[in-house]
């Protein structure tokens, strides 16, 4: 029996898509519930609210968004001719089961066992539960997150194994040289990282970059999680400031675990819809050289506040400002390149390409409310406010989310061999999501500017009005998602084209 890497990639991408879509439904429902509680529509107990927020955050960010783009990456690579080989396929399967088990563990420990230490579980909070959950629950939660973290590592190993595979036309056989070739160094140093006969396809570059960066980012967090499991049973502790830095050493790059595979999807699909090559594609190679280094050196902009006076943290934080500003260069160059690939092209508009285009628009808009936070003086004002919640929902739901929706509408027919159930439903879903989530995020940003605190199950009375105002918008947004679930479900269970043809012929 021969090994068919493309067929395995197709099946695995479908697995990831189905599982992540189910997680979106569950975590989206939790988000709806805690939002309704905050608006006093159906008030939850405080610990229940924080437990659901923990599950919602990890479920939506890692279990849906990251998991979905991780799955699409296998198909993007297969579409470029970089098919899975046996080791990569084993890593892809292992990733799937580790992630599913990890997310299930997070759901059990939060929803059923009451762990409510927030989705960033800032150490040592998980060990100060005020009697709401026990240390064994903390150990189980930490173990579940560890499984999801290991899923990220195995995914990275599988991606790196695939991007340096035989489809990479690197002249060198040295694996290190081949890796740097895969992340676009050949565009900058064509002699040292030579390719023959074809250059590196652009969608490969962000996948190689995130493949190496997430290993660097995740391993220290895995160590911290192992330590937390040990601390659940033994009287030991770790310096909280060190733990906080380790968390954000992972916590910032994990945003790119969502963004970079999404960018790979952009690089693959936007030129197809525009019917021309990526404009200035070779220039973006420069951006990715910056990205591969800067990604893992900006973590401390999440630690601008709340650190001991006189510690080295303040100096580290100051250094993070220019590094964070530098990260706008890869984003700006990618946006420029993708924007001008669309501009004055014969762009083919459908639900998938509309979602991708609106994802680009949202990338720009959400980037603006993000980059200002890099300035310490500004962050000091908005950091613990709903501004941040508005910013990251705008980025995750509209930049990343719309890429996932667009990729689903584009790839699902390829993956299933069946036509999309309804192009019209897909378009309604895309537009309702874009407007609904934009307004919803804008309300949070507005509340944040007024000083509304984040991570509060009950907002102070002064901020209640905009929480209530958001309710109808959230309902519209949620109803829009039902169109997506229906479309995915009906496409998956729909008749195969040949069956449909037979049925029509006999009718």
């Amino acid at each position, binding site marked *: 029996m021969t090994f068919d890497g493309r067929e395995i990639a197709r099946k695995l991408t479908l697995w990831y898509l189905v599982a992540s879509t189910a997680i979106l439904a569950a975590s989206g429902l939790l988000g709806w519930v805690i939002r309704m509680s905050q608006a006093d529509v159906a008030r939850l107990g405080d610990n229940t609210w924080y437990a659901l927020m923990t599950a919602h955050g990890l479920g939506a960010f890692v279990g849906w968004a990251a998991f979905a783009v991780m799955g699409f990456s296998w198909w993007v690579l297969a579409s*470029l001719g970089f098919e899975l080989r046996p080791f990569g396929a084993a890593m892809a399967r292992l990733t799937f089961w580790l992630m599913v088990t990890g997310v299930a563990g997070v759901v059990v420990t939060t929803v059923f066992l009451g762990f409510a230490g927030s989705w960033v579980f800032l150490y040592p909070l998980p060990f100060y539960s005020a009697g709401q959950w026990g240390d064994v629950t903390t150990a189980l939660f930490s173990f579940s997150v560890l499984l999801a973290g290991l899923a990220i590592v195995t995914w990275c190993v599988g991606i790196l194994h695939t991007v340096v595979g035989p489809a990479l036309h690197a002249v060198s056989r040295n694996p290190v040289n081949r890796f740097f070739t895969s992340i676009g160094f050949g565009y900058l140093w064509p002699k040292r990282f030579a390719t023959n006969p*074809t*250059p*590196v*396809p*652009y969608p490969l570059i962000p996948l190689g970059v995130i493949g190496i960066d997430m290993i660097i980012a995740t391993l220290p967090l895995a160590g911290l999680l192992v330590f937390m499991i040990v601390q659940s049973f033994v009287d030991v502790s770790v310096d909280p400031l060190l733990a906080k830095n380790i968390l954000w050493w992972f916590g910032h790059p994990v945003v790119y675990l969502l963004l970079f595979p999404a960018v790979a999807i952009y690089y693959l699909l936007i*030129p*197809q*819809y*525009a*019917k*021309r*090559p*990526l404009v200035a*594609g070779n220039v973006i190679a420069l951006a990715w050289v910056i990205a591969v280094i800067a990604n893992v050196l900006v973590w401390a902009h999440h630690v601008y506040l709340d650190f001991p006076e006189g510690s080295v943290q303040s100096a580290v934080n100051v250094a993070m400002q220019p590094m964070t500003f530098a990260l706008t260069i890869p984003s700006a160059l990618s946006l420029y390149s993708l924007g001008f690939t669309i501009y004055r092209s014969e762009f*083919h508009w*459908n*639900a*998938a*390409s509309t979602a991708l285009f609106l994802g680009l628009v949202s990338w720009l808009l959400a980037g603006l409310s993000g980059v200002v936070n890099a300035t310490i003086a500004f962050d000091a004002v908005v950091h613990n406010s709903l501004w941040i919640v508005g910013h990251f929902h705008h980025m995750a739901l509209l930049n990343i989310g719309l890429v996932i929706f667009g990729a689903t*509408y*584009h*790839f*699902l*027919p*390829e993956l299933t061999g069946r*036509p*999309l159930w309804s*192009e*019209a439903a*897909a*378009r*309604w879903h*895309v*537009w*309702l999501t*874009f*407007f*609904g989530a934009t*307004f919803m995020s804008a309300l949070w940003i507005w509340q944040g500017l007024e000083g509304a605190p984040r991570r509060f199950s009950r907002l102070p009375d002064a901020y*209640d*009005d*905009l929480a*209530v*105002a*958001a*309710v*109808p*918008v959230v*309902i*519209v947004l949620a109803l*829009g998602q039902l169109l997506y679930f229906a479309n995915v479900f009906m496409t998956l269970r729909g008749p195969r084209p040949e069956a449909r043809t037979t049925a029509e012929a006999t009718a």
Partner: protein
Amino acid sequence: VNEPEQQLEGGGSEKGLPSLWLVLAMPVSLAVTALALMLGLLVAIGLDEGS
């Protein structure tokens, strides 16, 4: 390798004039969401004045 492939049938490729459902998706979605926002703001203002 970096040339665009012409494989767009996967994402839907309606020919001729798009149906009314397709045309209405954007403006009606905007209208519905804007109305929802206005309704929410009105309720919030009402609650504010009532308290």
